[in-house]
């Protein structure tokens, strides 16, 4: 049996990888993909705890995370298409319309 901490370390490494992508990359598409990676690493943790504690709720929350992720990606890509149509750029540091 694989110890629980191995799964948790895998989740942490994937999370940090995704965070690196979000913080360091210029391309909005890759920032979104890194976000997917982070959400997925959280799912690994949820399912691992669900398995080791014999409790369904981890899996159920993971199902909800997947559903919400699908919604988020659809909206984000819609915004991206509108952005490229209006500004013709995909780079995160050139999108300053909201003065953020």
């Amino acid at each position, binding site marked *: 049996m694989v110890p629980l901490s191995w799964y948790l370390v895998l989740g942490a490494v994937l999370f940090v990888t995704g965070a690196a992508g979000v913080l360091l*990359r210029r391309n909005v598409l890759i920032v979104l993909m890194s976000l997917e990676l982070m959400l997925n690493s959280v799912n*690994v943790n949820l399912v691992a705890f669900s398995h*080791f*504690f014999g409790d369904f709720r981890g899996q159920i929350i993971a199902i909800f995370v997947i559903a919400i992720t699908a919604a988020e990606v659809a909206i984000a890509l819609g915004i991206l298409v509108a952005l490229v149509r209006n500004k013709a750029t995909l780079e995160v540091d050139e999108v300053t319309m909201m003065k953020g």
Partner: protein
Amino acid sequence: MPAGGLHASIFLEGTFMERAFFLLFAAMAIGSGLMVIMARNPIHSALALIVSLVQVAAIFVLLGSPFLAAIQIFVYVGAVMVLFLFVIMMLDVRKEARTRFLEKGIAPALVVLVLLGGEMIALLLGSQRFPVLSAGAAGSIEELSKTLFTDYLLPFEVASVILLVALVGAIFLARKETD
């Protein structure tokens, strides 16, 4: 006790195989995750992310949740990543390949990442609370669906409404302004 010894050796062998498969899947997932953030071409990033998600689905199988593994492949690989690939191919990505990384703010981001990773790994490896090993083995898909459709019915319906709203919103956002 030959019988006990035999059982112990079979058990150890099973453990070894499981750990070997876990390490294989984990190494593949982390390697392709690194490829996602290192690749110059967004298409390569998307394909590496597909590999990573499939490896995580295999890890879900190791964790005794085949339903989630199937959902992972259907929804992530089948829907989300295909959507990504469509958008990448719709947009012109060739001129975006100038620089991969942000030019300013790298150092603070790296500090944050090292702190985050070090803290999480230190907490996980230093904690004594995790080895709770029980033979819990979160049962069958039938029980999962019963729990999902009784105790969690309201969140389930809310999630479907959110998906509907996302559908309408995505169509509205990506629509061409004709009038």
